[in-house]
Every structure is written in C-alpha cells, then in structure tokens.
C-alpha cells in the first residue's frame, strides 16, 4: 500500500517583549529561579492581569507578514487545568476569537520547489512555569520565571506531506519571526518550539487518518526525526491490523522514539470561557496600517531582491536570506566592499565554514561585517591577493587587529604590483635555480605551463606572498621564454 503523510504544526514563538504579557516582570532568560516572578505571576490572591501592548503589536506584525486577516477584536479566554507550574489554575489564552486569522506562508524545499502552507490562525497566550525534578530529593521544585512569558501560537492547516516540508515550514516561521524581531527564535532556550500533528492515509484517500500529537519538539533535527519515527510507527501499526489512537505523544531524542503521554479519553476538558479580568482587545485599521508601514523587508522579498538586483544565484540568495542575522550581515559586508558576489562568496565560504567549525552563531562572529567588508574591499581594489586575504581573515578572527588595513599594513601584505620590483625578484629566482631553468627550456612547449608553477611559488615565497600572482606569471613566462 502507498501511504501519504499528513502533518499540521502548532508553533509556539516566545515573543521578545521586555516584560511579561500580563505583568511588569522581566522576561530575560536564565535568571535565578523565581527572581522574575511578581505577585501577579505567582497568582497571589487578588492580583489581576494587565495586557502588554507590545505583545499585541508583535502578534499583529506577524499576522501582516503572513498576509493574514488581523482581527479588529480578539478575546482572551481562560484555559482551566491543574498543574503545579501553572500558578492560577488556568492559562490565559485565546480560542474563539484569536488576534490573527487565516493566512499563508510559502516554503522553499531543498530541491528548489516552492509550496504554500495555509495558516489557520495565530493567538496570544501566556507561558507556564517550569517544574524542576532534579536536586529536590524526591520532591519537585517550581520556577515561575517563565510563567507569563508571552507566546504566539501559530497553528497551520494540515498541509504538509513530509518531514522535510514540516522542517521547511518551521524554518520559514523562524525566519519571519526573527526578521520581524518579534522572537529571538532560539530553539535551544525554548523560544521556538512546536507540537506536531501526524497522521497517515492510503494514497488517494480523502479522509484524514487518526492523528497523534507530538508535544514540544525543540529543534529542526528533532522535528524531522520525530515525524519519521511516528510515520513508520503508524504505518506499521495499521499494516499489522492495528489502529492509530488519537493521543498526545512525547519525542525522546535520546531513544529517538515517540512515547504515549495521554490518550483522548484521559484528555482534559479545559472549560474555556472569556477571561472576566481582561477586556476584549480592540485594534483599529489605523493602528494596523501604522504597523504595516513599519514592517521590514521579509525573507521572500529579500531573496527575490538578492537575485534580481544583486545578481546572486537562486541558491546563494536563499541561503543568505534564510535568517535576518545572515542577511543583515551579508548586506553590511556588501555595502562596505561594494561587490555582492565577493561578499556572498566570503560570507558563505570562509566565514560560515569557520563559524560552523567553532559552532558559533553569526551574531557572535569574531569577524564583524565591517571588518570582512573592509577585507574584501582590499581584494577588489587589488591591494592584496587571495592568499594574503586568507591570512588577513585569520588575523581578524584572532583579534590581531582592528581592521584589514591595519593587518595588511603591520604584516606588510600589500600586493606588490610594481613591475620593476617583481622583475627583480623573478631575475633572482631564475638566477638561483639554473637546473630548473634548463629543465624548463628543454621541455615541450605544452608541458611548460605546468612547470612554471614552481617558479611562481618561489617568487611568491620570496615576496612573502605579496606579489601580484598574475603579474608574476606574465613576467616569468616572458623571461623564461626569451631565455630559450
């Protein structure tokens, strides 16, 4: 039997607000437990929520970025359930009337195909705290620093048909929220995480199969692996005559498997109802329009511009526009050096290679965009050659100078283009290597091209890499040929 995979995603993006969604507490990651939890976050008797307008603006900006209908009026509801890290006994969320309505998002697959994924809606909600199971001798500790952190839950339609599409979708969401600056998108810190709904059905069948929901998957790699595991599990189950039950599952990255958490029968009745402590959120057209005007250039637009205006290949354009940090870095390099192609080559080549090797993010790159741009500028104007450029890059990486120019100066890497000077070195090399000169002269003309490399290497060595290689080549060829 041929099977088709059906995937829908709920992506939780932590919004990059200064303070929590309903209190003034800070949202900074990594503070001592419970130092960022006010009376409101602790759910102390009598406390009331006050909506953070920054979170609303961020949600609206997201809506606009995915061409969604932004609701003029949205309502916060209470989702009631008991859990120790849920201080009020309910999570304030949106269900019936979310702030962002239906929209769509284009994804780009590795083979270059594009596909539009529908977004069902996106709603605002508060995060819960964290239960700490270690270091408490059989007890559980509660850290409420995260409680009340604003989340935007982005719910897709079940439009994805493979793990790769799912990952491409999450990457596209990641790019949009980071472009908008509404989330840092840091998956390791949980700023972006998702619940994956997976089902399978015989190819050609219209009705969806029974789905399982995999909770809280927090890396691109885990999303892909969890889906692979889940798809295989479901197909095997059905082919063996079993039935998929609707349930919530957990992905265990260590065992690389999903495990049942709870079935539908045990599922909570959340008893949603409108939160009487919060007024409906009203956003008018003028406000939406104002936010629309402040939208930055988004990934798809940027990719198109990189191709059409800068003449980059489709591949380069998509890689360089994938994240805002990457795109911003590249554009600054390009602006400083004035050569988009060289900038693209260096950012994707030398820089990305070194960053990957040392497992660093581009926003903490030891070589700044201005430094890299300054370096490329000196290649473009032929102040240095490619060989020297690599030395300069390494020196910048190691912090041995403020700028490429400073390093070029201090190390004397300036390319020598003075033909007199180059001739002098060439003459010296020819004089020092009579045996090789004889070999060269006795060789067939078509073999000579290869043999000249030896002399070039000697000249470059003698000039400590500063001689212009093209010039060296030409002068050498002329001299050697005229000797014979």
């Amino acid at each position, binding site marked *: 039997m041929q099977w088709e995979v059906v995937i829908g995603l709920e992506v939780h993006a932590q919004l990059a607000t200064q303070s929590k969604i309903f209190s003034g507490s800070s949202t900074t990651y990594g503070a001592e437990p419970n130092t960022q939890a006010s009376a409101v976050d602790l759910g*102390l*008797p*009598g406390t*009331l929520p*006050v909506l953070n307008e920054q979170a609303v603006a961020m949600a609206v900006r997201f809506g606009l970025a995915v061409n969604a209908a932004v609701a003029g009026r949205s309502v916060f509801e209470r989702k009631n359930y008991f859990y120790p890290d849920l201080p009020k006994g309910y999570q304030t969320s949106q269900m019936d009337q979310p702030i962002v309505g239906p929209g769509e998002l284009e994804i780009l697959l590795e083979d270059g195909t594009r596909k539009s994924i529908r977004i069902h809606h996106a709603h605002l909600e508060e995060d819960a705290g964290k239960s700490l199971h270690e270091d408490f001798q059989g007890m559980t500790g509660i850290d409420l620093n995260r409680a009340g952190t604003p989340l935007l839950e982005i719910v897709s339609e079940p439009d994805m048909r493979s793990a790769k599409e799912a990952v491409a979708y999450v990457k596209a969401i990641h790019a949009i929220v980071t472009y908008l600056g509404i989330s840092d998108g840091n998956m390791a810190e949980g700023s972006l995480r998702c619940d994956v709904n997976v089902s399978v059905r015989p190819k050609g069948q219209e009705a969806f199969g029974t789905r399982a929901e995999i909770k809280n998957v927090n890396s691109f790699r885990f999303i892909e692996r969890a889906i692979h595991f889940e798809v295989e599990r479901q197909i095997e189950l059905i082919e063996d005559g079993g039935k998929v039950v609707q349930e919530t599952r957990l992905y265990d990255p260590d065992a690389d498997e999903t495990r049942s958490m709870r079935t539908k029968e045990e599922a909570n009745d959340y008893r949603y*109802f409108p939160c009487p*402590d919060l007024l409906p959120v009203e956003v008018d057209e003028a406000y939406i329009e104002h936010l629309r005007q402040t939208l930055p250039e988004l990934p798809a637009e940027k990719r198109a511009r990189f191709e059409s205006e800068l003449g980059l290949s489709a591949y380069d354009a998509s890689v360089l526009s994938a994240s805002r940090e990457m795109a911003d870095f590249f554009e600054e390099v390009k602006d400083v050096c004035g050569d988009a192609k060289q900038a693209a080559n260096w950012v994707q080549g030398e820089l990305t290679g070194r960053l990957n090797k040392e497992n660093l993010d581009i926003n903490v790159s030891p070589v700044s965009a201005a430094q890299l741009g300054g370096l490329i500028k000196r290649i473009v104007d032929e102040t240095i050659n490619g060989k020297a450029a690599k030395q300069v890059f390494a020196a910048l990486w190691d912090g041995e100078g403020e700028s490429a120019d400073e390093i070029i100066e201090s190390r004397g890497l300036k390319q020598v283009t003075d033909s007199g000077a180059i001739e002098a070195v060439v003459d010296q090399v020819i004089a020092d290597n009579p045996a090789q000169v004889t070999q060269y002269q006795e060789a067939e003309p078509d073999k000579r091209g290869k043999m000249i490399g030896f002399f070039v290497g000697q000249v470059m060595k003698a000039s400590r890499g500063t001689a212009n290689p093209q010039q060296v080549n030409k002068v050498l060829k002329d001299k050697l040929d005229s000797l014979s």
Partner: protein
Amino acid sequence: MSSSIALHDKTLSELAQGLEAGEYTSRELTEAFLARIERLDGELNSYITLCREDALRDADAADARRAAGNAATLTGVPMAIKDIFCTEGVRTSCGSKMLDNFVSPYDATVIEKLKAEGVVILGKTNLDEFAMGSSNENSHYGAVKNPWDLSAVPGGSSGGSAAAVAAGLAPAALGTDTGGSIRQPAAFCGITGLKPTYGRVSRYGMIAYASSLDQGGPMARSAEDCARLMNVIAGADPRDSTSVVRGVPDYVEGLDYNLKGLKIGLPKEYFGEGLSEEVEASVRAAIKVFEDAGASVQEISLPHTHLAIPTYYVIAPAEASSNLSRYDGVRFGHRCKDPQDLEDLYKRTREEGFGDEVKRRIIIGTHTLSEGFFDAYYIKAQKVRRLIRQDFLDAFDQVDVLMGPAAPTPAFDLGAHKDPLSMYLQDLYTIAINLAGIPGISVPAGLAGKRPVGLQILGPHFGEQTLLGVAHQFQQLTDWHRQRPEFGQEQA
C-alpha cells in the same frame, strides 16, 4: 457637633471634624475603638484579625501629620476592612481555612489609597468564605451575630463589616458586593452601604469571587460618610484593566441634591410575592418622604427580574470555579499533610481547605463550563444578562432612580435557612444590579421590631453621585440612620 454623642456612635465625618478641632487625637480614637472591640467582639465575632499595633502606629503617624498641617480629610479616622482586601503584612483570610495562614505581601489598591489618606485600619472583618453567602454563616471563623438582635444573622457576605459598624466597633468599613453583599447586610444591620458601578473602584488586591460581578464599596453610618470614602477609593487603576478610565466627581459636593422634581421608579417586580409586610410598609413610608419633598413616583417594570437568580447562579459559580483553582496547596495557603502524590495534594488540600458552600459553587461552576453544557448554561446566561441590563437602561430612560426594598425580609434567624436554595432567594432584589453593573445603595428606613429595614436606591451607570445625594437628603429628613442597637450601649 453635639459632644453628647459617644465617640463610637459618631459618624466618620463627625470624627474627622473632632480630629480637626483637636477634641481628641487619632491615638485616643483608635485606642477607644480597639478597647471597645476587645470588650464586645467576643459576642459579635465581627472581626477575624485585629491590627492593634499597626493601628496605633498609623494613628500616631496620622497625629503627626495633622500636627504638621498636611492632613487629608480622613487622616486619623479609624475604620475596618472586610478580610477580602489584601493588606500588606496582615493575614488576609477571605473567611477561609484555605487562607488562614496567608499574610499578604502587598496592599490592594483601595488599601493603598486609604493608607495614603491616613486612615487607620483597626482590623479585618468577618465574611462568608470567599464572599459566598447571604448570612455570614459560611465563615471558617464562625458566624457573625447581628448587634440589633443576637439571634439574627447580620447578612452576608460583608456581615462582619456591617455588624462592626452597627455595633460601634468601627465608624465605617469596606465591603464587597457580588450579588448584594454590601446592600443586604447594610439593610440587616441598619447602616448605609454603597455598591458602586462595576469598574468605578479598583478590584486589584480584592480577592476574586466572581470577577465580572465583584465590586468593593463603602459601608458606614451615613450617605455622607460613604461619599467621603468614595472620594478616596474611586478611580481608574492601571493595575485593573476592568476599572473604568473616567473622571471622578466630588461625591461630597453631590450631597447637596434637590429632591424637587426627582423622578422615582418603583419596579413592580420588587413589590411582589415574598416581600414581608413590615419591609414593604417601611419602604413605602420612605418613598412617601421623597414624595413629600417634591419627588414624583411611577411604577416601572423590569421584566427579566425573575431570571436574575438563575443567571447569577450560572455566571458567578463559573467564574468562581476558575478563580479558586489557584488555591491548590502549591504556592501559598493551606496544604494538606504528607501528600502521597500531586493528585493527592490537590484533592486533600482543597477538600480540607474549602467549606461546603464554596465546594458547592465550584462544582456548579465546573459543570456549567464543561464541554457539552457551556452553550446551554454559560452562553445562555450571558444572553439573559444582557436582557437584564437592558431592563435597567430602559428604566433609566424614564426615571432618575429606582427604589425598592434591599431584601425581602428583615434579618432572619441564625440557622433559619437550612436549604441553600431558599438562602439564594434572599438576594432577589440585589442580584440583578450586579449583573447589570449599575450602582445601588441601601439606607436604613425603618425597624421591623428589633430588626432594621433597608431602602434600596438604584441609579444608572456612574450615577453614584445622584444615589449618594438622594440618600443624604433622605437622611436629612429622617433619623433612621441615627438609630443604634442596644448592644454595647450600656457599656459605653
């Protein structure tokens, strides 16, 4: 001001004048009230917590402030606070075993405002657990007695506040009103109590029972005193999104109200079956006073009145079931001993911590919000709520105020209502006002034997100034509000 009146029988305004005139200090006043509470409250049970040391410290500070010449109107006067308002450093129990050990780390907004005014807090008064009740018999700290007749209830849920004011154990108090909990006990105890428009007084720090209905307000011996307190506590609060951003009028200035031409509506539904003859007689006599002063009276219909109690008992428990889920034994309040696991912690904590009435309403609310019942109950109740509100809006197109009884009977005997449903019917005349969000005031208007009767006056949204003015004028023409129970008098 007649100095023949004992300190404990004076109004807040009279006490403030005495302080201003230097007749006594805030310390003397505070000590007098503390002594009286310590002597008499054993029998009444109107206080849960007495704040003796804090009160004396604040009284001294108020005296210093007055001496320095920068006192506010109410600086140095003492008052009591329903134990539902969070008060920094003081136990705030809400009448529940669940919060018996809860010392609030912060002040409610209204407490902050009273403290800034220089008001001295004598203590925290008794109430039905989490403000759920009409008799004050549902308190973890025991029932409060009505000072007019110790065999009667003081009314609920602000019964402790009402009894304390009536008995001279505080000149005024803060109460809260979700379905009548300021007006009904005020009526039962012969004092004046105002439930402001929803959103007029901040709910921040007021422990929630039913958020969309809860409203704090003043309870005192006169409409004038209520106006003085409203001048301090009313206003928008950035910490309460449901508080209304709107200018606050001077309520004391509004007391100078001309009754001539006042159009009074009498809702016929408030004068029907179940209304005791004694109450009706007192209320009609009071209305005659207004007519004699030049007001006109007409009958009005509020056709959805009969739906108010069932609507309330869907919405209030629904919100309560959610509001009370934070009492889970995890972060504060009561926690059961040696829980076996998480579920055991929740179950036993809540089983032990909540009383019967609270559990009853949590279960009702959980049921009405649950899948499959939500539309039939909660959504339907919200629709009826709009109809009830519209009844009042229509009525106020025709009249300035509505008048009627605050409760169908005078205070009933302790233990009289064994069946919760018969108790719920007590709130027949008060509950619709909360559903509509409009203000209402109860003023003393007679005595049925030893037990007081309250006249209820209702106004349109933000009509507090009118209500206080109308009530004040009534109190210029009558002296029901000057009547005092025998309790505690001989010991003065």
